[in-house]
């Protein structure tokens, strides 16, 4: 009987089924908001006001033929999307979704902020391997661009996530969320970090203005050029789930987590992640793609110094508060 509870958590909530359903809902929300910002309609006819459109896209991809290039390594080609999806779903398990008290926390432990950040970096390496193993020059260029972008945004992201952890005196997502629940005014100290984390999350998700690795008008599909059928469906689902996990991470660290029991926690999760995704969609609609050298220039000139500045501010405030 004791084994039933973890299986329920892994499979249903906050595990696989909830993630798949909620991430398709978030993709619909993102597409609808993006379309409304551009004065058009977005998905309309599949389901009521287009809500089943992401599901329809994935079903269509599952029905297409799966082609692997002749010279490519078949085992790696097939394994990479599955690994990536598994890693991102595991990262979702650490989000402090309904456990607010010390007891019965699912798999939270001190230091799980670092584990989540690490698990979110692994898909980037998998994208590089995916680009390298498809024997196509466009994929190789895309894979190399993915790693080059990693040099740009990873340090600011980690530094920005570090600041609330320093303020809350803990590396555990649960305790950081609880700290900001108790003292909501201290959330304002981390405003710069919030903005930096949003920009770096946009770069991690490879959305405009940072969709350089799979820039459609330059290198066709980048690392995803040779993928088709079920493997491409997995990569698309990966993008959506990564968006949900990233938004959940930012709301847990900066916006005070998801308090209350089961149902209020779920409601807060949906509200806060949708808020973060709205900001990401607005960023996506208002800018254009930048070049890879301009991106590195931007991150090391603006993002990294601002993240260090945020850390200084946090240390000073911490000294004043305690």
């Amino acid at each position, binding site marked *: 009987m004791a084994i039933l509870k973890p299986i329920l958590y892994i499979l249903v909530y906050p595990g696989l089924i909830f993630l798949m359903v909620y991430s398709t809902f978030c993709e619909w929300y993102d597409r609808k908001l993006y379309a409304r910002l551009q*004065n058009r309609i977005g998905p309309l006819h599949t389901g009521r006001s287009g809500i089943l459109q992401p599901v329809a896209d994935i079903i269509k991809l599952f029905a297409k033929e799966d082609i692997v290039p*002749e*010279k490519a390594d078949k085992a790696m080609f097939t394994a990479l999307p599955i690994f990536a999806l598994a890693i991102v779903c595991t990262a979702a398990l650490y989000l402090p979704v309904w456990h607010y008290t010390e007891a019965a926390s699912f798999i939270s432990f001190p230091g799980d902020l670092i584990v989540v950040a690490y698990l979110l970096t692994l898909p980037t390496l998998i994208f590089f391997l995916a680009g390298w193993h498809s024997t196509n*020059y466009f994929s190789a260029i895309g894979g190399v661009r993915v790693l080059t972008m990693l040099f740009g945004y990873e340090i600011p992201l980690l530094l920005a996530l570090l600041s609330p952890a320093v303020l809350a005196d803990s590396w555990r997502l649960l305790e950081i969320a609880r700290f900001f629940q108790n003292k909501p005014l201290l959330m304002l100290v981390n405003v710069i970090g919030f903005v930096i984390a949003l920009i770096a999350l946009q770069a991690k998700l490879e959305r405009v203005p940072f969709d350089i690795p799979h820039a459609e008008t*330059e*290198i066709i599909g980048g690392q995803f050029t040779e993928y088709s059928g079920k493997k491409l469906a997995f990569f698309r689902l990966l993008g959506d789930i990564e968006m949900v996990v990233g938004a959940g991470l930012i709301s847990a660290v900066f916006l005070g987590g998801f308090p209350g029991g089961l149902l209020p926690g779920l409601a807060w999760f949906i509200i806060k992640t949708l808020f973060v995704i709205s900001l990401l969609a607005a960023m996506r609609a208002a*800018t*254009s793609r930048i070049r890879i050298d301009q991106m590195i220039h931007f991150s090391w000139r603006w993002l990294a110094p601002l993240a260090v500045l945020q850390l200084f501010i946090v240390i000073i405030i911490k000294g004043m508060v305690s």
Partner: protein
Amino acid sequence: MEYKVALGPQHPALHEPISIRMTLDGEIIRDADLKLGYNHRGIEKLAESRTYIQNLYLTERICGICSFSHQTCYTQGVEKLMELVPARRGLYIRTLVCELERVHSHLLWLGVAGQEAGFESFFMYTWRDREVVMDILDWISGNRVHYSMNTFGGVRRDIDELQKKKILDSLGLLKSRTEYYLNLAASEPTFLGRLAGVGKLSKETAIALCAVGPTLRASGVPMDVRKDDPYAVYDEVPFEVCTADSCDVLGRAVVRVKELIQSYLIIEFLLKNLPEGPIKVKAPRKVKENEVYSRYEAPRGENVHYIKSNGSDKPERLKVRAPTLANYAATIAMLKNGFIADIPLIFAAIDPCICCAERLVQLDSARNGESRVLTFSQLRAMANQRYKNVNFKKKDIAWPF
């Protein structure tokens, strides 16, 4: 290390098939070569077996965006062959539709430049405002693309007072939106970073490589067929030739937006000074023997038609030189030592209309300087022979990394 990549013939950045073979060194392009011919439809051969009136509609369908420029260039040439003076009101309406086509083409280009750079919202907004121009053209000519307004001696349809008022009202909206886009493109840092300093073409190189249109005018050379060799009523309409000095993609964008503003002024002048009278004069069916060279300033540059007649009602030869064909050499010069990320923008900055440019070029044999004509079955036999003689097995292809 260097490796060769082909952009095209199928590629999301290209709207029509063309193959650019590049030699790349990481992200930098070392060398580029163009391969044409994927979109050849044999229009010049078809024109020889159709009458002059039927060719009006054939030349219109050379391109979709600059369709009126091809039809007008042809009509002007044939009117010169027939020694026909077209009606004044017809000429004014013809010039009005020319300028409206220029407006729609430049708004389309702004959207395409935004899409190639990844700025999709800009693309959606400029195309939404382009619908105003498409609606105006729909009211005047009955069609959004392929207006078919020209006939020998004038135009086929008239403009009444209600249409005139509607056009003048829409112009105000278009003017304010164009100013907004100019301000936006100049102050959005991500977009400006993609456009500025990309695709440099100095003044001497532009003139030496025979660039035309906004590509040439952005390098500071004020050449415009409407001023140098006026046709229709351009000698009576006051306007300025727009140039820019920055010699890069941003300069070309600025030139096109300035041309948009000039076009709005020209359209207003034409509508306010439209003369009364018939819209066309009667044209003969048979044309006596002569040849003519007709020039026109299409939105992309100088469009040239050469027509030769032989006394019957069908032309002897029609040759079309589209502006994009003249800009290809300049494109290759601009691509060298650029980044991969700049290719779509450099290519889009010349405003490529590849279907316009797919015409016949007669090459002489390199060895003994003589030219020959092959039938289709002979070409097929040659192609089969060539691919039979190449022996390569798929397993031998190596992935170099």
